[in-house]
């Protein structure tokens, strides 16, 4: 088992400055693909470097299975890291780069050559083995960098923004390749990203870091349906927030009482509903709203609404939006199962 446990990790880069990590605790299940998500400066890369052993933690522990790896040098941790840029070694060929780690372990050349050939085929670089890194495209270089780490069969694979240096067209391809290789090898993998859509599309689980703190560790679906805080909801595109009070299964607020599902925390709170869950037309919790703006965004259309002085936003398909015009009054409904209460 290679469950990775981060236990109350703290790190400051300077005594005077703010801490980069304020006591991060996170358990990454063996064989899972976890996204470490957060805006820039949230401590994602710091966390990766701590796990890889490239910087030292001020306090806290890092465990792989039941052994602490906190004080081991990087080369003895069983952790391989792929950086944002491919960082291939320019003086080595593609094959030389991919075989690098095995050579450092002192494996015989014939075994290295066989492993390298097999690995290059898996990332579809077989015919570029003798190229120099300067002769590769961005996507090819990133695949070579991935192969260079995967060939070592590390216990933990760290990928730091592996898609951000690629063209949009190449991202889907690379995302699919990472997903496939991770499932095939079963290597415990952490992907750092600032892009919530990328995290959702790639990972089994998402750990969201905001300002050096873990705010939620959950399935991708849960970040949409049950965000832990307003900040989490906002990070995932939440825009509708209505203050009020929960009493039994009813929410009292400026737009009148709304029926809620059972089991939500009682007392004051902030009601939220995803813009794509707000329904235009009749249904439960029916209200009348005025259209403030209609913006065509391609596959979806954004409708800005005013409802008794509360600003709301709905995302609907262009078909649903057809015929809607600014200033018109329409009926809006709030499906109870789509409502969620945030601490206020």
């Amino acid at each position, binding site marked *: 088992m290679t469950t990775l446990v981060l236990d109350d990790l703290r790190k400051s880069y300077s005594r005077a400055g703010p801490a980069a990590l304020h006591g991060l605790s996170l358990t990454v299940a063996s064989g899972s693909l976890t996204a470490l998500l957060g805006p820039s400066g949230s401590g994602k890369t710091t966390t990766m470097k701590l796990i890889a052993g490239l910087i030292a933690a001020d306090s806290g522990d890092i465990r792989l299975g039941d052994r602490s790896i906190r004080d081991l040098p990087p080369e003895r941790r069983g952790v391989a890291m792929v950086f944002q840029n491919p960082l291939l070694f320019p*003086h080595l060929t593609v094959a030389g780069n991919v075989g690098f780690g095995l050579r450092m372990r002192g494996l015989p050349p014939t075994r290295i050559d066989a492993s390298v050939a097999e690995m290059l085929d898996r990332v579809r670089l077989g015919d570029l083995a003798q190229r120099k890194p300067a002769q590769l495209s961005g996507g090819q270089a990133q695949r070579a960098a991935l192969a260079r780490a995967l060939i070592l069969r590390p216990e933990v694979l760290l990928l730091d923004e592996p898609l951000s240096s690629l063209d949009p067209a190449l991202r889907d391809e690379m995302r699919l390749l990472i997903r496939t290789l991770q499932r095939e090898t079963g290597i415990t993998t952490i992907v750092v990203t600032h892009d919530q859509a990328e995290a959702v599309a790639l990972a089994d689980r998402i750990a969201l870091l905001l300002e050096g703190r873990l705010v939620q560790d959950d399935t991708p679906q849960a970040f949409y349906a049950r965000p832990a805080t307003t900040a989490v909801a906002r990070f995932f595109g939440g825009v509708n927030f209505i203050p009020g009070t929960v009493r039994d299964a009813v929410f009292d607020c400026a737009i009148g009482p709304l029926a809620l599902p059972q089991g939500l925390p009682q007392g004051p709170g902030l009601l939220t509903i995803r813009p794509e869950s707000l329904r235009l037309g009749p249904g439960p919790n029916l209200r009348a709203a005025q259209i403030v703006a209609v913006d065509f965004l391609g596959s979806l259309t954004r409708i800005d609404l005013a409802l008794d002085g509360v600003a709301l936003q709905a995302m609907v398909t262009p078909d649903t939006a057809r015929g809607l015009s600014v200033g018109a009054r329409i009926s809006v409904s709030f499906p109870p199962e789509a409502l969620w209460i945030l601490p206020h």
Partner: protein
Amino acid sequence: MTDRTRIALLLAPALLVLAGLFLTGLGLTLLRSFRYLPGLGLTEPDLAAYAAVLTAPGFLRSLALSLWIATASTVIAAVLALAAALLLRQTFPGRTLIAFLVQLNLTIPHIVGAIGILYLVSQSGSFARLAHAAGLISAPAEFPILTHDPYAIGIILLYVWKELPFITLILLANLQTLGEDHEAVARSLGASRWQAFRHVLLPMVLPGLATASALVFAFAFGAYEVPLVLGAHAPKALPVLAWQAWTDTDLASRSEAMAMAVVIAVVGLALLALVARGLRLGGQDAR
């Protein structure tokens, strides 16, 4: 104006200086080394000067001494510069001051440095007197002979002191461009600190190190003023022989001076060509 004409015009001043001074000088040197001196009534070029120079009794020893001086000072300076550059790219208190001190002696002329060495490490110099005062040696004359010595220690000392910051600066610029990410990758792929240096960083800085070292070698091999001040009476470094032949009252020996200058230039150019070739091959073969 097309791009090409603009580039040509912008380059013209530099090219003019290069062609006008360097190539003309080189051409004249070559002509004179072949004893083509119409002013002296010599209009039939021949190889007599080369024959005289190459068969002169002390020539081989002088050539060997110059090669020794250039090789030893380049190797020592390169190794020390690599260590200094690796140290200076890190951040630590006092780094700026040390970096400044390292660069300071770039501004000091070679000849001034040579005289400084003379004052410091000759048998009548400061170190000898300090060692005597401290009771380490019973007389200043017992201080090891480091100037005008057959192993050219004083000369090598001066070149190392003078060229070390030059190579360090080039390496430092090189290292700062590369950053430390490649080493971090190597470490995370299982390379020890030494392996990351040996298999990743060193090959990446080698082109810069080789080029800087070749320049230092060519200079140490061809410059005459330092061996003139700090060198032994015999054998003399090759550039000193050339200088003496050039200043000889016998005008005929000027051709020999030119022949020696050509030999020095050919050795220097051959070395640069070898380094360039090595870098090209290294770029192709490595895996």
